[in-house]
């Protein structure tokens, strides 16, 4: 089986002379890579090498590798191990070429795992600490020959456009003074690019480069494109863009020894019925009437032949892109290796492009997924990187279309003054993502001459999920883990707002322009609308509670009240009992729980050293719940028994500090009468001298 798994060895700089900020950033960078690989449940292998540790490997000084040097599958445990690993004792010395050498050895050993792609990521501070470059040529040759890709990430990286090719190129930022050693180091780092096709990038670009992988063997849909019955082209469809998250999380409903099933239940007029399968048949609603529609009665038809069946050539711009539907964009290329089909497709694409036409086809995916779908094929002319291809998109049908009646925007009431339009122009100019960078010969901090390139937009939600999971893993073991704390964590973490603003470089200017616009355009929140909104919200919130109180029940926990965290157990079980809507069942459940907690209290009293705090909490909880559930008699009986035990075991401290002090004696209904007061006093008083 061909897989696209990769083997990535990351070389980290931990030398004491490297900038602290740099080291923090590089660990963060590695953590991001690992997190991504974990949540996407990739089968990729990774490992780490540290340059600048106090320990040595066999042949390299100050370089150590992670866990016997074998590569690892990604897991949360590995992330935690990494955090401990980078804190190994460090020293001044360390050669990055040694690091790469060790990484190359690890790659060599990992060959047995048959990775499709092998990469080394070097995160190094090329500072003024001198390095030896004896082996530079031999190591770079080895990299080039073994086909291992090298990515080098560092700080002080800026980008300029190459004079000749116009492509962005990474350089070191010369804005500050560099020592001769530093320049020497940087020279070699820059030299890696021509020597072994390495990619040199800033931290942000490093992540992009690591995540951006090209696939030589994509999944393909093999098919034929037919025009009439004679012209046929063998093609392969491939997904170019798909609105699908790579994050995979397992969703479960039960613990491991429980069995989960999804069952179909039938209802007639609200009452559950259990019809035999043969009693049921399929039908469709035609207005208020159900029409029986038995698929089996209709003649079974032979499936339509799969493929792309030509429907018509249309003008390229006659189909509005508003009608494009589906969740993916395909490209259709000729069948790999078939020159005849390549010829035909090439001619077709060129003809479509020059006459400005597109093509409509019926797409039938396979004999099994046989529903015909209308697709539009748009030409994509060949270039150096790809042959002639067609874009393929699904089209919506006329029965789905909406026809709107939008009043014209240009009315006298909404007319803007010159001044207002100027303010808007200023807002547009000061928030321009491209123009502010028009001077392309100046070094810039980002690769592309665009503050927000369309091909590298982050996945905000996925990033948040990853961060939340990471937080959970790191915090594992800490005691508090409730929803409140979780909420605080979400608030405190600034990932919430990081994406939601104008890019930093433009922020100040844009803010000023926006405030001018604000001054010129009178805007007022409508009170009527707010009130309407609130009323609607209330109505919506009120509805479901009345509807389905049944579903609010919290399932009964399987365990009972334990001896360790008794109070917590008790509160938890009590909450689920309270949620039972059936009164009789609820009372019965409470009786069981009460019996359980009484046994627990008596058992706790048996102990040699009493945990007074725990006992006090548990008894007062129990007392309060008896009040709530009207279980007065039972509690009275319990207090009598309790007193007997206390007297028998002479638990004076418990009695005065807990029972008397916290007033945990028998319950009194309503305002206590004089009799009640006297009885209570009698209960709390024990004549310890008189006890034998």
């Amino acid at each position, binding site marked *: 089986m061909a897989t696209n798994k990769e083997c990535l060895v990351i070389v980290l700089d931990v030398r004491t002379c490297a900038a602290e900020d740099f080291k923090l950033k590089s660990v963060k960078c590695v953590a991001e890579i690992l997190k991504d690989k974990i949540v996407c449940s990739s089968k990729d292998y990774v490992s780490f090498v540290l340059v600048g540790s106090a320990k040595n490997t066999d042949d390299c000084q100050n370089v150590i590798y992670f866990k016997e040097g074998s590569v690892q599958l990604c897991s949360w445990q590995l992330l935690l191990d990494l955090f401990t690993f980078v804190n190994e004792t460090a020293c001044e010395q360390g050669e990055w070429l040694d690091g790469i050498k060790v990484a190359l050895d690890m790659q060599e050993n990992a060959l047995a795992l048959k990775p499709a792609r092998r990469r080394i990521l070097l995160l190094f501070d090329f500072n003024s600490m001198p390095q030896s470059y004896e082996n530079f040529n031999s190591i770079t040759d080895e990299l080039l020959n073994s086909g291992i890709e090298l990515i080098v990430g560092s700080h002080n990286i800026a980008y300029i456009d190459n004079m000749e090719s116009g492509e962005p190129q990474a350089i070191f930022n010369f804005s500050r003074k560099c020592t001769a050693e530093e320049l020497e180091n940087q020279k070699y780092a820059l030299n890696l690019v021509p020597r072994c096709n390495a990619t040199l990038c800033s931290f942000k670009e490093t992540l992009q480069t690591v995540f951006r992988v090209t696939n030589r063997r994509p999944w393909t849909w093999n098919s034929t494109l037919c025009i009439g019955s004679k012209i046929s082209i063998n093609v392969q469809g491939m997904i170019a863009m798909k609105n699908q998250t790579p994050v995979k999380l397992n969703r479960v409903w039960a613990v491991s020894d429980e069995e989960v099933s999804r069952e179909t239940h039938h209802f007639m007029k609200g009452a559950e019925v259990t019809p035999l399968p043969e009693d049921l048949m399929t039908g469709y609603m035609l207005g208020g009437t159900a029409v029986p529609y038995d698929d089996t009665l209709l003649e079974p038809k032979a499936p339509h032949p799969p493929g792309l069946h030509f429907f018509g050539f249309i003008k390229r711009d006659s189909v509005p892109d508003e009608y494009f539907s589906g969740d993916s964009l395909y490209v259709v290329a000729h069948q790999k290796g078939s020159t005849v089909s390549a010829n035909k497709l090439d001619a077709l694409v060129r003809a479509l492009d020059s006459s400005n036409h597109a093509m409509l086809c019926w797409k039938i995916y396979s004999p099994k997924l046989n529903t015909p779908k209308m697709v539009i094929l748009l030409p994509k002319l060949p270039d150096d990187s790809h042959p002639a291809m067609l874009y393929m998109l699904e089209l919506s049908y006329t029965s789905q279309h909406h026809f709107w009646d939008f*009043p014209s925007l240009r*009315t006298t009431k909404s007319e803007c003054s010159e001044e207002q339009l100027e303010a808007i122009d200023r807002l547009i100019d000061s928030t321009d993502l491209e123009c502010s960078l028009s001077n392309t010969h100046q070094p810039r901090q980002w690769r592309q001459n665009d503050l927000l390139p369309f091909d590298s937009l982050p996945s905000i939600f996925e990033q948040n999920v990853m961060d939340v999971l990471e937080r959970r893993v790191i915090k594992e073991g800490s005691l508090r883990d409730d929803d409140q704390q979780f909420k605080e964590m979400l608030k405190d973490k600034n990932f919430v707002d990081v994406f939601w603003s104008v890019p930093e470089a433009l922020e100040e200017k844009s803010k000023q322009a926006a405030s001018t616009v604000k001054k010129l355009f009178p805007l007022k929140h409508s009170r009527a609308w707010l009130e309407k909104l609130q009323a609607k919200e209330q109505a919506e919130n009120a509805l479901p509670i009345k509807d389905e109180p049944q579903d609010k029940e919290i399932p009964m926990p399987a365990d009972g009240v334990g001896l360790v965290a008794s109070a917590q157990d008790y509160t938890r079980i009590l909450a689920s009992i309270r949620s039972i809507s059936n009164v009789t069942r609820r009372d019965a459940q409470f009786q069981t729980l009460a019996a359980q907690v009484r046994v627990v209290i008596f058992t706790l009293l048996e102990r040699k050293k009493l945990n007074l705090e725990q006992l006090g909490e548990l008894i007062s909880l129990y007392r309060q719940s008896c009040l709530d559930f009207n279980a007065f008699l039972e509690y009275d009986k319990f207090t009598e028994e309790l007193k007997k035990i206390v007297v028998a075991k002479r638990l004076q401290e418990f009695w005065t500090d807990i029972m008397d002090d916290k007033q945990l004696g028998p319950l009194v209904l309503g305002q206590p009468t004089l009799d009640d007061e006297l009885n209570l006093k009698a209960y709390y008083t024990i004549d310890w001298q008189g006890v034998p």
Partner: protein
Amino acid sequence: MSTWNPANDVDLLSGSEDEEDIAMKRDYHGREAILFVVDANLQTAGIGRLMEALNIIRTAFISGMLVNDKDLIGLVFANTKHSPLPLEASCVETIVVPENCAVFLPLRQLTKPIVEHYLEFMGTVESQFATEYGLVEPDGRGKFDLMIRLCIELLEKCGKKLNNAKIAYVTDVDTPHLPSSNEFQAALQKAIDLEGKEFEFHVIPMNDDFDYGPFYKEFITLSRAIELDAFVEPDPSLLREMLADRKLKQDFLRRCLGHFAFHLGPNLSMSVQYYNYFQRRALPRKVQIMRRDNSVVSTKRQIIVRKHEGEEIKHEYQMKANQGWYKFDLGEKSLRLTMTRMDMVRNMHKPHMQLLGFKHRSALPEVLYSKPSNFMYPDDQSIIGSKRLFRGLWERCLQREKIIVCLFMSKRKSIPRYVVLVPVQVDKSEVKSYRSQLCGDGFKIVYLPEAKHIRHIDMCDWNNTANSADDEKVDFFQKIIKRLRIDYQPNLINDPSLDYLQANLLALSLDITTDSKGIDELLDTTAQDKRIEKYMPDYERLFDVEAVPAKKRPAKASANGASSSKMPKIDMKQIESYEFVEYLIAEERLTSCTVAQLQWILQKHFDENLPKSSPKDRLVKCIVALSAGKAGT
């Protein structure tokens, strides 16, 4: 039991993001209603025009039944002389039916008997309509305000909660009352009532030279609370066509997917609303019914958790889908992230849109797709003054060819998405084409794919200098394109599987046969073949015959688990020709042949016999050497 295995339930996290969830939820709180009002004046231009109107309503009835089974539909005649009672006379008891109006069908969910009754009525119209309903005397002008009052009353007393009520008035009289008359003023008063009650009013002209000027322009703008100069005059023939599909131009105020605030900067935001261009594919609702009496059985899927202890079931309870949790492992330990917490992560922001910056129109690649685009229009209701700011921004972007890059969270618990706002406007020259129906002035919201949604494919295995075709071949396809050109119209493309199902349902229940074309007919290529017949010799001359694509080993049949025997990658027939063998050698593809095939090649083309046990690479080397020798001689 289904094949669903909860242990492997991989949640892709995108479950909550569904454009139309809001719309669906709202539909749950009320139904849609259409009240048709037919002007009896239609009979004066000949019974044909009236029949045409009734036919449109018939198709509307049927298509409505097929798609939105819960909708309420009613029919009223206006400007009649008599007021005959509807079939169920009792249902108009609580309603005051004014003079010159006749209720044919109060608002009802359509059923088979109702449609049958309507079809029966249509059969009698030609002979009996004039006598039974007649036309109000002397000039065919009944009171418009009373007619509207009746409609409002019918809608209000329909007994169901409505969320979207429309009145469709089918007429050919463009001036029901003269602008100076008292009746005109009374009618305008009713228009204001309609606006207050959020009932939509549509007029469907049955003649093409209909003039909105004297009456309807003012009436409609009042009933929608828009300015008089914002009124766009629709094309009558298009309206009729759409109505037959039971589509009315949707009122922008009530049919949006959601309202939200668009933040342009700190403290600067305007209120906007967004819409979809097309809805989810709507099929007739599939149900389970009892075989004996056709009664509907509703089904619910429930998640049941059980714990077994030996044979015995220790406990059993039902779980709601959102009560589960996400499981992930830390070493041996399994950790949880509950759905509620995931919801908190989703809910970190209120639904809104944040401006990130501007780019030039050309920065947007020609083909970029992530999900269907939406349309954005200002909303002056929540933040007063939004419309003017929106217009300013829109006009400047149009003029300077700018697009706006934003981050957009469309509703609660949804995933924030990067979007581009592209300014669009109605082209006045296209009023008669379907494009004018698409939307209006505003911004198109184009969803951008995230970096991880873009797949980078290295096409080096496809690239070959031999791929490119010469000019003659391109010319050939130019000719084919010319012969097989069509004009795109959205109604050209219907969903064949839906058509097929609907035709069957109508035939089964109402005995109506429709001339729906099956998909087989759509895939029929005879017409295409005929049009390009004369170019076929060129085709055969220009392009070689396609090599039979290599057969793949069929995937492992899951039933028996064993892998099937190896299929030869190269066809036996092909290696019979020596040229093909040479081609294989040149392409270094001899290894694709099986050992038996290589032996066969050696024997056939080179008269060589190697021992049966020879390994493959030895056979290949031998063939290459022999072929080189052959070429040398």
